[in-house]
């Protein structure tokens, strides 16, 4: 299977000399195509920093990252923007939908920005909307729909360009448990049926239990890694909880 993410010795430090804070300390990470990977760890462990670096929003101090075969560290602003648009999809905790656009317009935005032909664009939007069951609300505005619907809209927007890598930052953080479960099921389905590669940062052991593999970070270093394999989701959930209690600091987030 093809490697989508290959990160070698990523280091990220903040602050000036004498007072340096290391957010990421030589982390290696490989994600294969079709994998659904969870990233966990206590607050301040460097989860979000890792995600931002992979998302090309933040730059590592040193190390080497390639995504879908492209080395992202030597790109300039414009190349990075295009790379984000074409290769990456994002899902955020607070949805990050544009209030001035309808659900449909929000979803098609990345396609419009890539100047895709209108007919093809409409087809893609229809297909994605159907998959996530939001066809009925396509003409509504974000402030008219529920949190779960917003997040499904956000996911639709993230995958409408068929990105090589889908990055999710606490996607279930603001959702009720029913909506959260729906969303996680859909993400799992995406990775299993359509070979979508997903990297999800989460605090929530329940959310992590939907992943195929979970990596744990502590103090900027790789702490351990769990692979679901053939175990059931419930057993995997228990395993995640065990690691979290060993890790400390994350347990109070269990639902």
């Amino acid at each position: 299977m093809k490697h989508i993410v290959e990160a070698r010795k990523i280091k990220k430090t903040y602050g000036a000399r004498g007072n340096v804070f290391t957010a990421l300390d030589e982390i290696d990470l490989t994600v294969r195509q079709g994998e659904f990977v969870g990233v966990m760890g206590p607050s301040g462990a460097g989860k979000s920093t890792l995600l931002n670096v992979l998302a090309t929003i933040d730059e590592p101090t040193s190390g080497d990252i390639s995504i879908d075969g492209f080395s992202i560290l030597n790109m300039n602003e414009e190349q990075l923007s295009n790379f984000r648009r074409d290769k990456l999809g994002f899902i955020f905790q607070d949805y990050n939908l544009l209030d001035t656009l309808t659900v449909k317009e929000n979803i098609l935005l990345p396609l419009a920005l890539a100047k895709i032909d209108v007919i093809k664009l409409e087809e893609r939007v229809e297909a994605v909307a159907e998959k996530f069951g939001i066809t009925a609300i396509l003409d509504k505005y974000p402030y008219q729909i529920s949190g779960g619907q917003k997040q499904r809209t956000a996911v639709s927007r993230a995958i409408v360009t068929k990105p090589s890598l889908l990055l999710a930052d606490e996607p279930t953080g603001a959702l009720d448990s029913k909506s959260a479960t729906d969303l996680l099921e859909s993400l799992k389905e995406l990775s299993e049926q359509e070979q979508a590669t997903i990297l999800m940062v989460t605090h929530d052991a329940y959310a992590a239990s939907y992943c195929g593999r979970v990596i744990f970070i502590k103090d900027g270093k790789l702490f351990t890694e769990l692979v679901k394999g053939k175990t059931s989701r419930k057993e995997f959930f228990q395993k995640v909880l065990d690691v979290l209690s060993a890790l400390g600091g994350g347990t109070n987030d269990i639902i």
Partner: protein
Amino acid sequence: MTLFDLAKKNIQGNFSNYLVYFVSMVFSIIIYFTFVSLQYNEKIQESILLSSTMNFLFMASSLLLLLFVAVFILYSNSFFTRNRKREVGLYSLLGLRKKTIGKMLFYENFLMGMLALVVGIIFGTLLSKLFTMILVKMMGSSAEIEFGISIGAVGQTVLVFLVIIIATSIQGYRLIYRFKLIELFHAEKKGEQTPKVSIASTVLGLLLLAVSYWLILRSFPEELTDGYIFVNYGIALVSMVIGTHLFFRSVVISLLKLYKRNKTRYYKGTNIIGTSQLLHRIQGNARTFTMIALLSAVTISLFGAAYSGYYGNEKNSFEMVPFSYSHQSKGNEFDAQIESLIQADKEHPIIAQVELPIVEVEGQLTFAFSYEANPMKLLPEKAYNEVVKALQKGDVVTLSEDEAIAIKPRLTEYNSSLFKGEQLHLTEEGHELTFVDLIEGSVLPFDYPDFYIVVSDEFFTKMANDIKPQLFKVYEVEGEKSTEVTSGKINKLVGKEDFQVYPSFYTEYKEGKEGNALTLFIFGFLGLVFLAATGSIIYFKQLTEANETKISYEILRKIGVNKKAIRKTIHMQTLFVFGLPLTIGIVHSSVILHFVSNFISDLIGANVIVPIVTAMAAFIAIYIGYYILTVNTYNKIANK
């Protein structure tokens, strides 16, 4: 800590928030104070005393300015509190009593107002000096302006602004009582709805604008009554105001929605972002846009008209007083006295002098002529041709005995087809003359009725036998624009009986220039104020918007829109916000100026295109400055 301290700390801590409000207050005070000091200025006082129009103009302007300044301060005050509702809500949430919060807001506003008043008066003093110098320069005099603070101006400014500041402070006090706590927290959420628009209001908006344009542009009826003016232009004004508002409220929205229909264009790049943002904001901005468009229209119109007057003054003076000096002959001794006076002025040697015999007769015309034709003044061909040579203006004429040429009465718009082939019956003598032409080129200073007819020398001699001609003497000298001393003496000698205007060109020219300069100055000043204020309003509005939409642009960056594209859409949106009201303002003012120029150009006989285009260009140039400033600041906020 006392409440007073808290209010003071509030200002210190949140300075940037307060700065915008403070600056607009200071700005208003500076403007008002400058204008009032000018009003109290001696030089200007003289002109005001001399002319009742000038007096009226100043009174009206200062009232208008007062009204405007009050509205502007109230506007910035509500803009300021809108941004602070959340903070006020927080105080209430933390358990501060309503009365305490109210008092705090009152003190805060009052304190700022007082500080603004002091700063405003200090800067206003400096600025009024500058403006007085500009005015004096424009009037063409070289008088020294003394530098000093006018107590009267300070008193008037302090009084006016004290009232305004107390009013806004009370408004601040009442803020906490006017809203529920929950409303205070949702202050910024307003105006985010998608605008709905009815076809009826769109059509009505366009219709009202069309009607107002038609009412303004249609030609005068046969009889121009006060009632007609009042009703016609009253309706035009009202429908223009409402039409403009509907234009921004409905027509623009409809147009944007129409634009959205074309998916190929709409779904292309950042078009989708820019268009939808504009569509969402326009309804909240409609009132501001209307105000700005109308203010721009008024400013451009007034300034254009005033500048036309200033610009056309020289030409106008030449028409009103064609020769450097003119007088009626009153015996040899008197005439010699005048001639020696003119000859004594060695700096302005005589180029030409002409004697003009004029015979006043009564007569009838064979066609309907709305001008007061009697008494008509006959002038011999020979004398007229001498005038043509002396002034080097117009063409030499040749007439046979029964032919005549009419000279177009000044301040009218007749053309030669009305006269050609028509006849003139001289009542007493029974003579008949045929008009061969109507020409431009008056010879004597204006005196109503201004109807001169050139006749052949033979016919004139015949007439002169029966009626004794009046003899006029005219002189043309070199450098007639600077004959201050001689002109003064001549004016005194000749007196005011000979003509309705001055007998010397210089005085007419100078006085017109001073009057027009003052008018232009007042309008220019008001225009500058409106311009600065409207520009600032858009600037502040865009900045608030930038802060509100910062998150959207962050999202866009994350999903792969590069800085350049965001910059482009910000450019496009700002251009729209600045360009739309300005365009409407310019179209409105073009219509108004077209109407005004109909009689202005008759009045001053000058080409009004140049000054009007200059006024518009100046307006646009300043707007472009604001536009660039806004785009840059917007970018700094939203596109880091």
